């Protein structure tokens, strides 16, 4: 445990600028959302939703860069002072992953908070349950189904590349993995879609139609198509499993190279 905490501290020292910058960027996005000044509420909501989508995508990208900075760990083909340290490769991988998640959770929760804010700007008065779903449940689902596997994949890719780089060209296995991954992902996601809703789905925003209808603008639009969101469990568990498998492989490679 002491080794894990020390490596976590090391990761914090290595990557804190990235983490602080990412979480701090929420202030920028809040300012940007506030600058959207369109009279039409649907258009205003649409523009702000696109901005938040960009914020979420950029956040995922920044976290991927942060976790994938393995190359900077090597100098002349050798790891820095991590070389020969007693903790296993799995611990090194787990530490990087935990730190990325520690940054991701407040960032995406913050984005959930901004979603709540822009929805509130439309005049919708959300109940506590809906707010919790917007601010916590949706970001956590996105982290679990999208970000967790993305970060695992990035970590695996960079460790794979670095492992080969020590004795030769890392770009060859890197290219093979980058080109091959979409095919695997397509096959895997087809399977996940196939098995979705085998387990009961999670129902979110059940009262949203009534809330919309209660607003001045909601009375003027057709809300018959607005239904509760039913999130399937299977993609979350499936992607979580995929992420764990990739992390184990990444740890095993690290173990082989440095262990």
């Amino acid at each position: 445990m002491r080794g894990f905490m020390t490596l976590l501290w090391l990761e914090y020292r290595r990557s804190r600028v990235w983490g602080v910058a990412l979480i701090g960027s929420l202030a920028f996005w809040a300012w940007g959302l506030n600058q959207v000044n369109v009279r039409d509420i649907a258009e205003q909501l649409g523009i702000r939703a696109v901005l938040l989508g960009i914020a979420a995508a950029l956040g995922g990208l920044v976290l991927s860069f942060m976790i994938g900075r393995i190359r900077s760990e090597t100098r002349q083909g050798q790891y820095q002072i991590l070389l020969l340290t007693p903790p296993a490769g799995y611990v090194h991988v787990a530490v990087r992953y935990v730190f990325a998640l520690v940054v991701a959770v407040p960032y995406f929760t913050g984005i959930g908070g901004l979603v709540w804010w822009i929805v509130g700007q439309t005049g919708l008065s959300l109940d506590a349950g809906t707010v919790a779903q917007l601010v916590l449940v949706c970001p956590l689902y996105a982290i679990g189904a999208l970000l967790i596997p993305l970060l695992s994949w990035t970590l695996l890719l960079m460790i794979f590349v670095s492992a080969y780089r020590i004795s030769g060209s890392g770009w060859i296995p890197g290219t093979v993995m980058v080109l091959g991954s979409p095919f695997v992902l397509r096959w895997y996601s087809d399977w996940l879609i196939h098995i979705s809703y085998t387990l009961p789905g999670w129902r979110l925003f059940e009262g949203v139609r009534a809330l919309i209808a209660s607003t001045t603008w909601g009375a003027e639009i057709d809300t018959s198509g607005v239904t509760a969101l039913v999130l399937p469990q299977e993609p979350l568990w499936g992607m979580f499993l995929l992420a764990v498998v990739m992390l184990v492989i990444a740890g095993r490679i690290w173990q082989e190279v440095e262990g």
Partner: protein
Amino acid sequence: MLAKLDDVTKLYGKNEALRDFTIAFPKGEVVGVLGLNGSGKSTMLKLLAGLLFPTSGRVTVFGGMPRVNRARVGYLGENDALYTWMTPADAERFMSGLYDDFDAVRYRELLDVLEVPRRKTKAMSKGERGRLRLAMALARDVKLYLLDEPLAGIDLLSREKIMTSLVREWHTDETILLSTHEVAEAESLFDRVLLLRQGRLALDANAEALRAEGKSVVVAFREVLS
């Protein structure tokens, strides 16, 4: 025996770094590992540290595979591989968090003796970083130290401090393998001298016996090379 290379050959592609190399290191020796550039010194130390696998032959450390026993070996590599943001205090936290055998009191004493400045490594000179790395390596309480060029790029006064520290810190049950080009300055430290030439062992001599013959290590070095 603390460590052993048994008929070891190490190739880098087609380049031969070590060939049919056999040697053993008992407990309690300071061994000077000498040779010209490319003679195989660093390769030998990396094999013992478990950083490289032999192409053929067998390497054992503490009776087992070097990788298995890596935590029991203090290795100081030839590369300056410190994080630029690290201060000596950060290095202490790092080492004491990862190595059970790290002696923080000894480390701080070494920092004082070696006059390591308490600032980030990016603001240190090459020699100062070298002294910090040496303090980190020597503050571990292990029985086998592999020091690859700890004197490289370091000024004369600092080299003297390092050698004084090595003498002071050395315990009779510890073995130190010290690779260096600063033969004349370091020779008084050595109990045993190995001279490598093109991946082969050209000389394995007792330093005291050499001195008794009236030969300095430098002279023996030159004789073998000529």
